[in-house]
C-alpha cells in the first residue's frame, strides 16, 4: 500500500527581495524515486533543505511521514538520510570519527551496516575528511545518510563536481539503492541522464514554481512534439490546450504539448491554416528544455 511520505503545501521561501520558492505544492508517496529537475536557481536545493527541515520556510508547510518537519524536526530527521550538494562533514574528523559522531545522533544506527558501507565504498576509516577527494566525501556523506536505514533519502545534486569515473561509480550505488529498504528517494540533478537512469517520477521546477510532477513513464508517453507545416505562415485561429512550448519559423510550427491527445492531430489537420502534421516522441532532456523554454516564452 502506498502512503504519502512527503507533502509540501503552499511552500514559499524568500531570501531578502528574491522569491526562491513560490507556493509550491508537491506530494510524494512511498515507493517513489523522484528526480527533481530544474536549471540553476530554480529552487531545487531550497526545496530539499526545507524538506529536511534545515531551514524554516517563509510560508506554507512541510509534512514528512505525516508530521510537521519544523515542529517535529528531530523525530522526523531520525528517519531521513540527506546528502547535500557539497557535503560539509567536519574536515578534521577521520571517517571512523564521523561514523562514531553520527551513530550517537541516530537511534537506528547500524554499526554493521556502516562497516559494510565503508567497505563497499572503499572508504579509509583512518583518513581525515579533509584528505578525501570530492567523490570520497560524497561517499562518506552517503554512508552517514544510509547507515541508520532511513525511510526517506534526500540527495541534493550528489554528482556535482565529480569526475566522470566517480560519477559512474556513484551512479551504480544509487541504482542499487532503488532495491534497498529505503521507502522513498528524492534527488536533484542537472544531469538528465542520471535522472533517466534512477528516477521513476519527475518534478520540474523553474523560478521557484513547480511546472510538472509526473511518473517518468507518463512524462515520456504523454509529452509529444507536433511539427506542423503552415499554409501561409499564420497560426490557426484557435488556441491549442496543453501547450508546453511552441516556436514558429516561417511556415514551420513546432509545438510541444502535454498531455498529448491524438484528437489534437485531427483538429489540426482539419484546420485550413495547416497543410500537414507529424508527431515526434521526445527524450527527457528535450521535454525538460521545452518546459523551461515554455515558461520563458510566457514571461
Amino acid at each position, binding site marked *: 500500500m502506498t502512503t504519502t511520505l512527503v507533502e509540501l503545501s503552499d511552500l514559499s521561501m524568500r531570501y531578502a527581495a528574491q522569491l526562491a520558492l513560490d507556493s509550491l505544492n508537491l506530494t510524494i508517496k512511498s515507493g517513489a524515486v523522484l528526480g527533481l529537475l530544474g536549471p540553476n536557481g530554480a529552487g531545487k536545493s531550497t526545496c530539499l533543505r526545507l524538506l529536511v527541515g*534545515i531551514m*524554516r520556510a517563509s510560508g506554507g508547510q512541510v509534512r514528512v511521514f505525516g508530521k510537521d518537519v519544523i515542529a517535529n524536526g528531530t523525530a522526523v530527521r531520525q528517519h531521513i538520510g540527506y546528502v547535500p550538494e557539497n557535503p560539509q562533514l567536519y574536515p578534521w574528523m577521520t571517517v571512523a570519527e564521523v561514523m562514531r559522531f553520527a551513530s550517537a*545522533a541516530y537511534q537506528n544506527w547500524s554499526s554493521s551496516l556502516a562497516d559494510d558501507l565503508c567497505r563497499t565504498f572503499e572508504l579509509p576509516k583512518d583518513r581525515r575528511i579533509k584528505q578525501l577527494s570530492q567523490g570520497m566525501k560524497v561517499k562518506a556523506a552517503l554512508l552517514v545518510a544510509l547507515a541508520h536505514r532511513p525511510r526517506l533519502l534526500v540527495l541534493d545534486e550528489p554528482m556535482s563536481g565529480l569526475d566522470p569515473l566517480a560519477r559512474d561509480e556513484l551512479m551504480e550505488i544509487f541504482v542499487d539503492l532503488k532495491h534497498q529498504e529505503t521507502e522513498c528517494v528524492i534527488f536533484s540533478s542537472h544531469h538528465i541522464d542520471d535522472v533517466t537512469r534512477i528516477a521513476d517520477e519527475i518534478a520540474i521546477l523553474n523560478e521557484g514554481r513547480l511546472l510538472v510532477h509526473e511518473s517518468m513513464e507518463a512524462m515520456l508517453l504523454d509529452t509529444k512534439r507536433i511539427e506542423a507545416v503552415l499554409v501561409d505562415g499564420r497560426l490557426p485561429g484557435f488556441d491549442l490546450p496543453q501547450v508546453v512550448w511552441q516556436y514558429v519559423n516561417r511556415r514551420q510550427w513546432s509545438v510541444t504539448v502535454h498531455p498529448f491527445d491524438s484528437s489534437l492531430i485531427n483538429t489540426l489537420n482539419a484546420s485550413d491554416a495547416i497543410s500537414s502534421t507529424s508527431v515526434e516522441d521526445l527524450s527527457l532532456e528535450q521535454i525538460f528544455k521545452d518546459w523551461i523554454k515554455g515558461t520563458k516564452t510566457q514571461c
Partner: protein
Amino acid sequence: MLRTLLWKDVRLNIVVLRLAAILVVVSYAGMAIQGVTSGIEGQFRGGLIQMIIWGGSAMSHTCLQFSLATLSANLIASERADCSAEFLTYLPITRKEVLYSKGLLLLGTCAVASTVHFVGMLGAAWLSDLPLNDLANLAIGLLFISAAGWGACGIGWFASCYMNSNSTSLLTLIVGFPAVNVALWTVVRFFQLEDRSNAIFVSAWIGIGIAGFIWGTHHFVNRIEP
C-alpha cells in the same frame, strides 16, 4: 549525545583551549621567574611557592578572561566558517542540545579554571602576612576582572551567534570590547562619576554580558539558516 557533542566542541576549539592552557603555564612560570629574580617572595610566609600560587593565579585569571572571550567568539561562528554547521543541522540534533554542549564547554572551562585560581589566590593570600584590607582589595580586583571577562564573553558570544566567520566574530570582539570601555569611560568622565567608576564599569559589563548571551542565544535558536 551531549557527550559526543562536547567531544566535538572540544576538538573544534582545541586551538583556543591549548592557548588558554599555555597562558596558564606562562602566568605561573612568569611569576616563578619574577619571584626568583626580584626576591619579593619574602612577603609570603610560605615563601616562593606561596607567591607563585598567588601571583600566578591572579595573572592566570586575568589571562583566562581573554581565553574565554576568544572561546565564546569562536564557539558557533567557527562551525559556520567551515560550513560544518549544516552537517549538524541535518542530523537529528536540536539546537538546544548544540547550545547545551557549547555552553557547557564555556562554563565548564570558566568554572574549573576560576575555582583553581580563586582557591589558589585566596588560600595563598590567607596564609600570607597581608592585612585584611589588602584581601578586600584583592577580592574587588577579582570581581572587576571577572566582570570585564563576562562582558567580553557576552560580546564574543553575540558576535559568534550572528557572524558566519570566526575571524569576523573575533574582530568584533577585539574592536567591540575596547569600544565599549571607551564609551563607558567617556560617560564616567562626562558626568563626573569617577568616584563610582568601579561600580559603573562592573554593572555595565555584567549587563552587557547578560544582554549579549540572551540576544545571541535568541538569534541562534531562531535563525533561519544553520
